[in-house]
């Protein structure tokens, strides 16, 4: 039973670390947009063919509208 004197404070320290980590994540903006991040996993990047880099000159031409 005496191990509780050691284990419970240890659990408290771990909880404290978890909260600190969560606050860091919050303040670095990871929870600012809950909508996009929730869907990002579904956007399958493999399906996209890599396209050549466009230069700024190429896009300054008007688009076919």
């Amino acid at each position, binding site marked *: *039973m005496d191990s*509780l*004197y050691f284990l*419970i404070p240890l*659990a*408290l320290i771990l*909880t404290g670390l*978890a*909260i600190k980590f*969560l*606050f860091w994540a*919050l*303040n670095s903006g990871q*929870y*600012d*947009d*809950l*909508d*996009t991040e*929730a*869907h*990002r996993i*579904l*956007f*399958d990047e493999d*399906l*996209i*063919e*890599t*396209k050549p*880099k*466009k*230069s*700024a000159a190429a*896009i*300054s031409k*008007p*688009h*076919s*509208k």
Partner: protein
Amino acid sequence: MNAAITSSLDCYHCSLPVPANSDYPVEINGQTHSMCCPGCQAVAMAIVDGGLENFYRFRTQSSTRPQQKKNNFEVYDLQDVQVDFVLPLADDLRRAQLLLEGITCAACSWLIEHQLKGLQGISAFRVNASTHRLSVDFNSDQILLSQIMDELDSIGYIAQPATDDRQQALLKKENRTALMRLSLAGFGMMQVGMVATALYAGAIQGMESQWQYYLRWISLIIATPVVLYSARPFFAAAWRSLKHRSLSMDVPVSLAIAGAYLASCWATITGSGEVYFDSVSMFTFFLLLGRFFEMRARHSNRMAAGNVAQLMPLSALLIAESGHNQGDRFEPRAVPVKSLQLGDRVLVKSGETLPCDGEVVAGRSAVVEALLTGEPNPVDKTSGDRVVAGTLNGDSVLEVEVTAIGAQTQLSAIERLVNDAAQDKPYQVAIADRLSRYFVAAVLLVSGVVFSVWWQIDSSHALWVTLSVLVVTCPCALALATPAALTAATSWLRRHGLLITRGHALESLSKVTTVVLDKTGTLTLGHLAIAKVESLSSCDLSNEQLLALAAALEFGSSHPIASAFKPFCMGLKATDVRHFTAAGVEANIVFNGNLLTYRLGYPEFSLQLCSSEYTPEQRQGQWLLLTSNQGPLAWFQLSDQPRESAAPMVAALQQQGIKIELLSGDRSSAVADLAQELGIAQYRSGASPEAKLDHIRQLQARGELVLMVGDGVNDVPVLSGADISVAMAQATDLAKTRADSVLLSGDLTIIPRAMHKARDTRSIIRQNLAWALAYNVIALPLAAMGLIPPWAAAIGMSTSSLVVIGNALRLNR
């Protein structure tokens, strides 16, 4: 009319119906899909060309229909304009804050990210789909801001400068702080709960006092940050309300948290009595959760409403006249509106918004003043006429001398009227806050009685029994009763197309006695549409062909009449198009192999083209005549059509016994006609914004609770002054931010349904309050007799809260 000639097919991009005979195919993922207009086709093609067709697989909502006119963003390259929203980071590195129109779901941010990734000169960017913001870092040497905006425009998102930076930062901070408080309370609740379980088990089975002492200290350590940090907003709000000599719900909440916490600390230190750390943490977490959902709903509503002050253009074309060389004229150059001076001359092109109040010095054009007057028909303006900032120049160029700018314009005068109206607005006191006054008083009274009685019987128990009374009667369920129901009802309404932006709206909505409606843009669609086609007997063309000819004539014009013909465009090409102001349009069209000259416009103008003895009869309403040089062909009637949902809404409201009035700024007889058509007995036309506000105040003085539905800037004062207001989705931003709710779907029948829902909400709130009170009434005597141990108090508190939340969730169905 419209329904008859559209097929059942929906546009693959925006999900609006595709007009029959139109042909705008795009191949996406190996399949050919039909689009409804050249705008959607261009956007879809740009998306496919960029290799981003998976956007269509990822998205969960259809996209918005892009505007067909090409937006010109070059003005945003001006240094003076950029001051407001572009931050210089390093030498050439700039950070721009943009607000994007057209974001509908998370896949939009994916699309935007991939479109921007391929551009040179952009070093970093961040899209936020919840706030519709884009922050982009770019190198001004390699890429212009207008090029970035063009690129976004090509995939269907219109970028505006986001000038409400400070407000955004505040919202972001509020969101982060709320999440931090909530997560801390959640962690604390679970940890204390775990320790408390051991304590309860010990209380039943017996446990050595050293362990009890140890576990109590552990819960004290965990609960302290929860009380000091997470529960702080309750203490702050309670203190504020006490300072104003009132008792809000926060007062008993704070009393319970602080009382239970301090007594538990005392019990821990002295090793006597009972501890309630678990109840305190759980209580804080539940309440914060309720407030967090409320805040999320409030924020997302505000984001969707967008920017204020976007009515005014940022730049104007200044015609410079040098001081020493009188009469010397230079090319007009774009300057920021802010730098305009009285007496300057500006050039306003067709389709542009007037940047200032002024007097026309040259040119003649039709100006749409619906913004101010509610009249959808353009007003003819020539030299000497006054024009007003914020109105739209219709068909040709005007040269205007500036007579008022900024705060002196008529538009700003309306804004001031709005602020006055908002101050006088009657607010409904929330039912829970009224109840809480009695509740607090009763709890304090009972606690005092219990304490003095126990002091006589057994003074060592008096404190602990009194404390258990405070915890058991803890107002958690009472405090959750209203916000839980309101949040559930708000999310239901949002799903059905009504966005509630002010907290009091639902409570007021259930008591509305009179509904006041605006005409243009509210009961009607707000733009001219073709009501009737009458082909003349000498003409053997079908209605579709006639409409296609007319559409070809009007193609590319920004005049409001032209937009009425847009849906009927079939790809006919008009050449040599000439516009005649306040008369009509003339062009050559090859049709069925014949090249003919056509005219569309007022009958006198159109008939000049052909030598026909046809004499037009007098007609009611606005009619245009189409002629070719071989003879007159057909009449088109244009009118502002009532919304399909207008008549069912009026019927549903009348069934609920609610009075309806039509209050319009339009001076024409159209108001009376519409009132008659919809069965509205009370109507008034030609009302100025001031007169509208006066009328609402008179109604309120008679004891009516007024719901106002409107859209234009001329409605804004009334929207602010009415007890509760609904702005249409197409309404000006000013109207949307001033209204209590926004009708997203344009379906008016949601209003009577929302009123029904509001009454349901009120009865759910009453049930919740009744339950919370009943629970307290039963628990109180038991606690007063000292029969309730801490574990029973904790269970009782959480059960009563969950019952309240469960009951509220019924509203979400």
